[in-house]
């Protein structure tokens, strides 16, 4: 039995119940007290997202200032339950327009109850697709569109879609201007040793799409990935074009992608949902271009003084630039005074996170600004030993750059009416967890 959740609770950080939906009788009504008493008020809270209390298992997740708790009494499928929570939150967000927090829940609690009724019945997940649910649960809570005039034409249509097979797209969409926006968003994860060698490095990327297309279009996407290119040259019996090809370690697709065709022809073809969605996700570990190199030297001079020198090198093209670069250099807790010299951007000491924070708003390629700082410490006997240099962390965004080198080769749109479409493609690379030990 996959989930069969017995109850779902939404709590705020103090433990007050915001939403309380019991699906089954096999758990008592006061499970929420058990959660508060044995998880929220103990040190257990951060230690594990799954806990068993008196025969019931609690799965909980914190999202902004809300805890979402699922209670089960059977041997449930955990991955499914967590995924359900994530999807449900995404659904709520699409209804509230962005934020999911305590206030949003308080303001919309009737709506949430309505949704909880539809997305889960007797503990079994039902339809969670926002596209379809929005057809009959409207934000204002007015009477559903096909019920006002029962003789109206859309009745059979709309209800078929409520549970129908092509669950992700409505028929009969019309746009004046047919547009597709494609965003390739990559986040680079790096772990570098203090000696400058790469311990671990990978890229997780996703392709986000926004479609404003009429009718039932068929889309086909071509990337410069190795397998796809090889297959294509094989099919067309001509040698593959030279140029960089990318080896994707693993790919997952939105449910709209025809996976059979991907496996046989290695092309990504699909009928897209209307609006915004995540088309695919991929992971790459080989041949990653790191956008930044960080070269730190941190010297402890005696007991009360430290010298910090950090050089950051941008290794992408000189015409490109990175935005919102933040470098966090940790310093000991007992830091008393700091003084800086930076060749670019601004730096300050932020006591709340025990870091020197160096911000550079616009960071051109092929440059290497430096920061040198002197840190004075309060001399204490006890604390001195325990400073264990945490890693330097970095945040950035580099537009028009992909750390993997992935490129869109083509995006084709077919629709029986044969309209023209405008395609927009953007690339951006962000820092995932970009850590440099020092």
């Amino acid at each position, binding site marked *: 039995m996959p989930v069969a959740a017995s109850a779902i609770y939404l709590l705020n950080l103090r433990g007050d119940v915001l939403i309380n939906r019991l699906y089954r009788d096999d758990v008592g009504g006061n499970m929420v007290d058990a959660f508060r008493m044995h998880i929220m008020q103990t040190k257990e809270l951060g230690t594990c997202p799954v806990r068993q209390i008196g025969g019931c298992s609690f799965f909980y997740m914190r999202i902004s200032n809300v805890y979402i708790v699922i209670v089960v009494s059977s041997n449930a499928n955990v991955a499914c339950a967590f995924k359900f929570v994530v999807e449900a939150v995404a659904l709520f967000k699409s209804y509230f327009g962005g934020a999911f927090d305590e206030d949003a829940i308080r303001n919309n609690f009737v709506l949430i109850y309505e949704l909880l009724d539809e997305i889960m019945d007797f503990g079994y997940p039902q339809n969670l697709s926002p596209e379809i649910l929005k057809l009959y649960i409207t934000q204002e809570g007015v009477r559903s569109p096909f019920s006002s005039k029962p003789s109206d034409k859309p009745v059979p249509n709309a209800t078929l879609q409520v549970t129908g097979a092509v669950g992700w797209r409505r028929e009969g969409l019309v746009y004046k201007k047919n547009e597709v926006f494609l965003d390739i968003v990559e986040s680079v994860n790096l772990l570098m040793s203090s000696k400058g060698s790469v311990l*671990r490095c*990978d890229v997780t990327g996703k392709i986000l799409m926004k479609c404003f297309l009429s009718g039932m279009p068929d889309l086909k996407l071509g990337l410069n990935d190795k397998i796809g290119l090889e297959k294509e040259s094989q099919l067309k019996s001509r040698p593959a074009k030279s140029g960089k090809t990318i080896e994707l370690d693993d790919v997952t697709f939105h449910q709209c992608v025809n*996976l059979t065709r991907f496996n046989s022809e290695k092309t990504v073809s699909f009928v897209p949902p209307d609006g915004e969605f995540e088309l695919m996700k991929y992971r790459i570990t080989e041949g990653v271009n790191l956008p930044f190199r960080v070269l730190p030297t941190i010297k402890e001079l005696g007991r009360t003084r430290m010298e910090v020198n950090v050089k950051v090198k941008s290794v992408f093209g000189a015409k490109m630039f990175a935005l919102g670069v933040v470098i966090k250099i940790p310093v000991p807790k007992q830091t008393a005074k700091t003084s800086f010299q930076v060749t670019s951007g601004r730096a300050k000491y932020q006591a709340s996170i025990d870091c020197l924070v160096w911000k550079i708003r616009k960071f051109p390629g092929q440059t290497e600004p430096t920061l040198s700082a002197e840190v004075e410490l309060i001399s204490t006997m006890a604390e001195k030993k325990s400073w264990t240099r945490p890693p330097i962390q970095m945040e950035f965004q580099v537009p028009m750059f992909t750390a993997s080198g992935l490129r869109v080769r083509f995006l084709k749109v077919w629709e029986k009416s044969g309209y023209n479409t405008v395609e927009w493609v953007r690339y951006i690379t962000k820092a995932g967890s970009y850590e440099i030990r020092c």
Partner: protein
Amino acid sequence: MAPPAQSQRSPSPSQPSGKSELSDLKLQLRKFAGSRAPGVDDSKRELFKKVISYMTIGIDVSSLFGEMVMCSATSDIVLKKMCYLYVGNYAKVNPDLALLTINFLQRDCHDQDPMIRGLALRSLCSLRVANLVEYLVGPLGSGLKDSNSYVRMVAVIGVLKLYHISASTCIDADFPSMLKHLMLNDSDTQVVANCLSALQEIWSAEASRSEEAPREREALISKPVIYYLLNRIKEFSEWAQCLVLELITKYVPSDSSEIFDIMNLLEDRLQHANGAVVLATVKVFLQLTLSMTDVHQQVYERIKAPLLTLVSSGSPEQSYAVLSHLHLLVMRAPYVFSSDYKHFYCQYNEPSYVKRLKLEMLTAVANESNTYEIVTELCEYAANVDIPIARESIRAVGKIALQQYDVNAIVDRLLQFLEMDKDYVTADALVLVKDLLRKYPQWSHDCIAVVGNISSKNVQEPKAKAALIWMLGEYSQDMQDAPYILESLIENWDEEHSAEVRLHLLTAVMKCFFKRPPETQSALGAALAAGVADFHQDVHDRALFYHRILRYNVSVAERVVNPPKQAVSVFADTQSSEIKDRIFEEFNSLSVLYQKPSYMFIDKEHRGPPEFADELGNLSIGEAEDNVVPSQRVEENDKDLLLTTAEKEETRGSTGHSQQASFGIDDLLGLGMPAVPDAPPSPPQLKLNAKAALDPSTFQQKWRQLPVALSQELSLSPQAIAALTAPQALLRHMQSHSIHCIASGGQSPNFKFFFFAQKYKESSNYLVECIINTSSAKAQVKIKADDQSTSQAFSTLFESALSKFGIP
């Protein structure tokens, strides 16, 4: 923060202060009850919202039931939904008033709007009042035949709800067979999926009551049903796909080509964006190929990339769930993941539950080629700010050292830890060095030099202190100061709170005495005196024992206390392989996260008393009798729970003294110990009852509960293989030996049988699972028995019966 136990009764200022607000609401609701004036719906909506919000925070608003029902006559769908929600919550405590709602719900069940029909039907079934079930049957029956799939979808789950209210009503109305028909014929896949959920639940609950239930349950995993679902799998929603995939894991394909067909069909599911679908597919692949070793290995290679992706994408909670599964796989096939060890490096900001699993993973995948890198990385964590993680990583280094290979470099690292001058690092490193020395005594020289420099004053934790003292005693001839350090520790005897340390101190000083008598004599005297005067029973007893044995004969004492030791080659594994297999069978469920099979935390008898029974007395699952158990007993039982499962199994298996001693207590606690009184020595010849009878549900129940008594592989003669063209042949043969078959299946070359036998004139049963592979001519036999002591005798009997098969 207000104490939560009272939070219901002492609401914060923003909440209603009690009766007056409720009666106010009541009046207002009454005012609107009959009114149909324009705008009245809006005011009603505000009032309903208020009621629902009170209900949410736990205030009892059931007294408004009548008024709410009166207000329910409305065409506003949101009002309707709020009213349904309210009614669903309180109908159970107000069964009489619930009757009032039946009327308007039944009317709504015939509304022309399918949405209203569905909603009304759902609410009708959610009333959960036993004496109203007669009103459910009609609407459910027509709901299942509704032209709209939304209504059908709701009706199917409604049948399941009805089953939980009144099983007999549901069965008598023949709903299960209607569901079965719908499952195989409905055009809407969500209806199909809900039918599947409902049927699975109904038939497994029914299994112990009716004879057809097990058959019906088997039918769900029969070839036609499975193929039907497989062919439609792409139409299902992602959640329903998980459901179907889980069902497929229970299916036994007849031959390998069928296995490959299924895997080919499902391979693209590994690329699904929903991690739950991917995990479910992984389970199918792993289970299907269990008997095909080579393919099974290829499956590991195939699922590696998708699983690693799942770890790095999604929330930490999701990573945690996936990592737990990965951990299970890594334990089964460490080499598969050994080149991917970098994926398990911890990130600085990850939650500690993820880090902890990653540390375990790094420990498991370490081999000759990557040990150096892994240990280097682990040493980085030893300086981590998060002290528990720092400790775990030191332990991980130690575990790797004990597993293998290039101990040389690791020992140096551990010794460096000792010099790091942090109390907790020193403490854990000491414990490890002790274990290491037990396995590799040849390193004593290097280690002792470093250990000797540690001041015992800096070691406070009992475990570490005990380890240090053990080393002082064991290597006292090499450590110059050993007698004097021990002496100073004995001087502070009274300040030593841990009995474990004091016990170790006694033994160490004895060992030291045998090696360096003149220097230790006075310390030994002091230790024995202090020990005999100790209030702790074990310390007292040990001191007295040492004292007496020394007086009897010193050389005998030496042979007892400090005999020559053999290096430990393998440290005991904490879990039996049987339990590990059980967990693997339950892949993709909580068992993997808890690292124990589901019967240990689902079945009441295995769970022991709920840990918090006294505080949560009104938990519905709490067992009443457990609350009576005196608190001291509960404590003892908690200790028992702390024992690893393997130790528990051992205790149960042995019929020795210890079990006798603990038996009384365990039984009092209702822990579900198998009642094994002193079994008389088993008679050499076991006689079986030729007319034994056992119904399938009892068999299943027993099979779940009993531990495996014997597990072995038997070879079959060529004649036997020749005779085994169909399962029936073996069945008849075994029956002639009074071993009966309860279920069988499969086609050449794989057959699976479940047999049972009963002891003559006793009701003691033997259960057997026998998997025969005709191509390898091997039979895998697992035997479970009510009476463990005779299982060997039965096994011999079974073996001889099997060996006669095929010989005319």
